[in-house]
């Protein structure tokens, strides 16, 4: 009985962790949906979000830093879309991969030059530390707050895509860009907005994780691997696929650690392997034709 409770605790903790992955993976998936580019520079925006939040926190404190850092990095996203990504929407996917991979390396070195190679200290306000107990389950107070923020962002993005005229154009543009153009609608501003949204979500992730993870130049490269795994398992470009996959990855990792702690990190790659073996387009993926 007690063992079962421990397992359940790991499952619930895994769901919370899934929220953590979701913030990064969803943006990656969105950018792929609109442009067909797998943005390997996504981790760099996550890192920049963390560093920007530390800079802003020096002057305005923790809360404003978390709110403003995604805005600042999102503005950078405009330049990123305008000068780089835009050229690769219709190009061979390998070119998009190469250019974003290169940008990720440039960003990492730039961070190293500006802030140094050593990790920077980052703390959350004292009030957010500690645990909350629900029955016998322990939750980090901070992670619950994080989960709430992720839920709000998720709902916001879903509403934007499904319940607004903006979202209708974007969805139409994803499926039939030629028809949208024929109707006299310029897709460009919509694409830019979606990229900025994805980039800002990555930066928000960085700002939120700074107090509980390591803030150092390679942090972006670290997160992009997991985010990519989540997107691949869920199905490239699928909204609910990414949500499902992020939660699944969190739970599988938690449950594995409950039984075989040393295999925790390996478990998510085994999961990806199995999913790709039996369902190459991912759990809810629809369009793999981009890669065919």
């Amino acid at each position, binding site marked *: 009985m007690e063992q079962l409770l421990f397992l359940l605790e790991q499952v619930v903790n895994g769901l919370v962790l899934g929220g953590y992955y979701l913030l990064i993976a969803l943006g990656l998936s969105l950018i792929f949906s609109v442009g067909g580019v797998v943005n390997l520079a996504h981790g760099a925006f996550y890192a920049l979000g963390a560093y920007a939040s530390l800079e802003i926190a020096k002057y305005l404190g923790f809360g404003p830093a978390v709110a403003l850092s995604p805005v600042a990095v999102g503005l950078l996203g405009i330049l990123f879309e305008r000068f780089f990504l835009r050229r690769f929407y219709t190009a061979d996917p390998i070119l998009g991969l190469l250019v974003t991979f290169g940008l990720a390396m440039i960003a990492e070195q730039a961070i190293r030059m500006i802030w140094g190679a050593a990790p920077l200290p980052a703390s959350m306000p004292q009030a957010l530390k500690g645990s909350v107990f629900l029955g016998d389950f322990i939750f980090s107070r901070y992670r619950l707050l994080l989960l709430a923020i992720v839920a709000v962002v998720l709902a916001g993005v879903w509403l934007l895509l499904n319940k607004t005229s903006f979202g209708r154009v974007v969805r139409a543009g994803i499926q039939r860009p030629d028809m949208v153009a024929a109707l006299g609608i310029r897709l460009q501003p919509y694409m830019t907005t979606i990229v900025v949204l994805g980039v800002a979500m990555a930066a928000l992730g960085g700002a939120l994780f700074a107090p509980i993870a390591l803030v150092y130049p390679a942090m972006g490269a670290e997160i992009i691997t997991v985010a990519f795994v989540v997107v691949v398992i869920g199905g490239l470009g699928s909204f609910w696929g990414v949500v499902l996959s992020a939660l699944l990855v969190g739970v599988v990792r938690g449950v594995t*650690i409950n039984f075989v702690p040393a295999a925790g990190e390996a478990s998510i790659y085994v999961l990806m392997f199995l999913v790709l073996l039996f369902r190459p387009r991912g759990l809810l993926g629809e369009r793999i034709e981009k890669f065919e």
Partner: protein
Amino acid sequence: MSNDQQDRKTAPQSTGRRKVLQAGAAGALALGFPAIVRAQSDKIKIGHLTPLTGFLGALGGWAVQGIRMAEEEINAAGGIMGRQIELISEDSVNPTTAATKAQRMYEQERVALLLGEINSASAKTIMQVAARNKRFFLSTGARSDVLRGANCNRFTFHMDIPVTVMVNAEGQGLLRDNLVKGRKVFYLTSDYLFGHDLAKAAKHFMAEHGATTVGDELCATDVTDFSPYLLKIRQAKPTLVATNLGGNQVTNFVKQYAEFGLPYAVAGFNLNTADAWAAGPGNLSGIWPTVWHQDIDTPGTKAFVAAFRKKYGKTPENHAWIEYVSLKVLAQAMNEIKSTDNGKLIAHLEKQPQFDLLKTRKGYFRSWDHQMQQEAYTFTVKPAGTYKEAWDFLQFSAAIPRPDQPLELLAPTRAQSECKM
């Protein structure tokens, strides 16, 4: 050189008057002041390898700053036997690249000797290159026991304290704070050579002093989220959490431990000052071991810290210190024997001459395993509000062993060591 100038002089019209004049002037200088030219090539080259990328890259950055400062000071003081030194420092990247670069430095760059490393695996491959070439290597920052144990060789000396000494120093701190006897311990260990080494020594020490084990788990070196492990720890209800984690993993762990606010005492057998600083005040707790710290009350440490702050605008970390003293020690030894001959240098160091390490007691390389014998320390965290600067929140202990105890107290004895040269 002269060929080059010859080419320039006879270059076609487009070369231009100014360039020809410059080349001519340079040629004249080379002819006119041969002594200077010879002095240039007369420098003593010293090879230095340390990781500047990857999970130890940040620590390597400190090491380079420390050794560059030593180079400047040695040259300003007249060099070695009156000759200036030229330090060739490179990123060692990984064990394979480290070995390739070591071979190139010995063979093509013709360095007098080689020093460096933090990564135990890279140090191991460089040690093999040194032995093959019968050349001198000083391993500065690698801590794995096997390097000075089963894998020891005549051509390598070791500056940093090995794992066993870290555990024993940490153990003294734990005994002092009554955190061993009767404690129920949960061990969390990084799943690689250094972590396993650390765990083995730690469990041995704790068992010997009356602690029991309630949990013993491994985690991969790329774990960044420790929450499932924190749940495991809570399930086991330990009275002490002992970590054997490597590199910047410790920082992640202590940040998340503070986030969850678990009530059990924390200790760890490895934490570098830079990683403690990165955790930040308010996140770090527990007792940790270290080889050097900036608050040691000796004129040497005070002067070093002041000079480092002046040059780089920040407080030196233990890797900056170790690279700095390592080069100083080698310079002193070569000045003493008036030679850069590697065989003579090894023979000299094996006579156990004493070296100032900026600590209270001087250190020496033990003749039979080439391990530097020196004082170690532990640190805890100062209470909030008792420090001003972010780097100043660590409270360091007095030197271990105590002044009345032998310096080799913490090191493995000859009977315990597997080193056979």
